[in-house]
């Protein structure tokens, strides 16, 4: 077992974990945050996307022990009593169907807009190109990211 300390959604956690534990399992099984989903376990679908120190990662491809001292954001960490503007936008334009890719999509969009609030449509598409969705044909997802951009600019 290895001791690891990291900040997840603003809260500091220290846990003794097996050395081979994936960040995805750390988040889901150790911290019981079930919003991060697994779709392939090999970094191809993006359902397990989380933000680590401002950048997006497939948490199935990251060892939890490599996150010592890092700041992680999961879907549970982006809103409090009120929805985050990106969540609002996904809801309003109906960018959600089965919902399984949604947390990862929202986090990919957030990482982009946090870094570049003026992102172009092309940049938005690139930002979520690692997140697969079989339900929506991506139409409403890109529309939601654009609407979120507008909402965030107004704030």
């Amino acid at each position: 077992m290895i001791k690891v300390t990291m900040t997840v959604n603003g809260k500091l956690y220290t846990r003794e974990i097996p050395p081979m534990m994936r960040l995805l399992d750390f988040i889901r099984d150790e911290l019981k945050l079930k919003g991060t989903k697994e779709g392939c376990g090999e970094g191809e679908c993006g359902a397990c996307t989380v933000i680590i120190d401002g950048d997006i990662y497939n948490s199935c491809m990251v060892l939890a022990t490599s996150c010592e001292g890092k700041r992680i954001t999961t879907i549970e960490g982006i809103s409090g009593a009120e929805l985050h503007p990106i969540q609002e936008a996904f809801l309003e334009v109906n960018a959600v169907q089965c919902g399984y890719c949604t947390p990862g999509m929202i986090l990919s969009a957030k990482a982009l807009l946090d870094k570049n609030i003026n992102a172009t449509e092309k940049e938005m598409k690139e930002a979520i190109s690692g997140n697969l969705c079989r339900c929506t044909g991506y139409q409403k997802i890109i529309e939601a990211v654009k609407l979120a951009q507008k909402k965030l600019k107004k704030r």
Partner: protein
Amino acid sequence: MGFKIIGSSVNRLDAVSKVTGKAKYTNDFFEREMLCGKVLRSPYAHAVIKAIDVSEAKALPGVIAVFTSQDLPKLKYATAGHPWSIDPKHRDIEDRMILTDKARYVGDSVAAVVAQDEIIAKEALKLIKVDYEVLPHVLDPEKALEKGAPIIHEERPNNIVNDFGNEYGDYEKDFMNAQHIMEGVYDTSIVQHCHIETQTAYAYIDTDDRIVIVSSTQIPHIARRVVGQALGLSWGKIRVIKPHIGGGFGNKQEVIIEPLVAAMTIFSHGLPVRYTMTREECFISSRTRHAIKFSLKTALTKDNKLQAIHVLGISNTGSYASHGHSIIMSATSKFRPLYNFKSFKIEPKTVYTNLPAAGAMRAYGVPQMIFALESHIDDICRKLDLDPIEFRKQNLVSVGHEDPISHVVVRSIGLSECIDKGKELIKWEQKRANYKEQTGDKRRGLGMACFSYFSGTHPVSLEVAGARIILNQDGSVQLQVGATEIGQGADTAFAQMVAEVLGISIDMVHVISTQDTDITPFDTGAYASRQTYITGAAVKKAALEVKNKILTIASRKIGLQIDALDINDATIIEKKLGKEICSLGEIAMEAFYDRTHSHPITSDTSVNIRTNAIAYGVTFVEVEVDMKTGVIEVIEIYNVHDSGTIINHKAALGQVHGGVSMGLGYALSEKLMFDEKTGRPLNNNLLDYKLQTIMDTPKIGVDFVETYEETGSFGQKSLGENPTISPAPAVRNAVLDATGVSFNKLPLNPQTVFEKFKTEGLL
């Protein structure tokens, strides 16, 4: 029709829980010390299992159970998610067991392990020793039909699952008298659903000795029955719970892993065991879409009317029957209410091969058939120099058309208007003229394709649906249905129906989204684009019953006749004067607490629907073909649908976008490939299998022509599967327009296109 809430774009009921990550899917539930199940899969496409030694695996610390077919009841069962048929002649083919004693494809389930965790379970799999006698295999269905081909199931030595078809009219005479006879062969590839949540379920035995299974399924009530059949248990001993599910597209309209997880918990003293397919397993050991090769021959009269059609189809169902012959029967039935053929002869064959089992996938065989038919129609028009749009319009069926075999009647058809809209959206005339005689490296073309589709399965199958409504003290209601929300937005549509009938707002309707076979009304589940049409009728019936009970109390209270009353904005009103009488809440309180008349208001009802409604639609597409690389880019694409009344525009748009995207993958990139020599899959992962990403998906234009279908509870027809049917032939026809080359096999990926250009001397 003057609806208030039907037709409005209310937000999905589950949107907040999904955007916040709170929505619970099968793998998000906790159970005490959940064990991990794993499956040992065959490395051979065809092999007899002579012996299995599991002793070392069993001895590994942390292993709870290891079992093989030897340890299970010798019961063969069918996995297709169809309603049970009391008539044995209409049952699905019972050709598989939970674990097999003979491997019929690479990936067949040979043994199962339950262990404390995944690492130990994987280690245990390596310790199982299997003695295989490898047999010759066959992947090509035409070769499987040859004499001397390897026999995949002893019960069917000719490898034919089924070959019944049908015919109507004086087919021979129509061909004899034809002005033109046209022929073509059109083929499709094996593709996969690729729902982002793979097959997953967990099971345990509860304190009453009943098996509880929580599963990502489209069909909880059917799953319960099949688990009972597979294990030889009373159906009532089994309880299936369906939480949120991460996509299905037909692949969860099949009982694939539920009997296995039930067996896993039985062998583990009833402890909770979870089995989740890896993505690689999901590609080959759940289900795929049948590759079907259609040979079409049509007879035309001298005024270019389609007179007769001969359809010869070979459907590759892989190693197990699964939905089997139903797929090609659906394909060859649902195209018939499109063009006015006077006679037809349909000869379909469903054939076993040593490939993963093919099953239900969005639109159930119809994308394959419509690819063939609509490609063929364009080939006819090109050969006879006819306008493809006018030709189609001249041959469309009209209201009143009755299929001579199924007797399904066309009661509404807006296809001609759909075509007009699509034609205008894409600027057909102008662009077709512009793109004549191009010679450059990049050539543009326009194509279109039509389709017809059913709403549910009547008359082939039972169409029963249940709904239960309970009125609360505050005038709000709970709705329970056995139909399943799988992402398509069904729950939201049902809530709109209840709100419409009861005159309350959508936020006063709480839909219980989880199905639990112990308490959920009976319904066969999400498939065949049936729920809005079939379950929608049950929901309306239940809501009308509740309304009648509410107005009965109001009538008793005020003295006016029930007919004189109505509910509007949760208020009882006198219809004629629009006068408000009392709140719905007051009536609800009386129903609960009146010392003389207390009788809380509920309805628990079901419908058996014995009609079908034909939905229609069209795809218009513009492509640009790179003549040097074979890359096809979609410049513009529009789908226009006649699905009757649209219950929720926002949700309907979502269905069309997703369906078109899936259709474009089918047209341009998706193909599950296998090594001929070994039968091993070559690209069963999301990197090598080319699913559409956001970078590949163009902007998708959508429009609707809202006919009113008299048999729909609110005028509605099907929509869920429909949008995925016509994009592929439309793209193929656009490429034909751009290049003059007929591509008769999907997909049109750069390699195929490049090679064909070479053969045609274009490169």
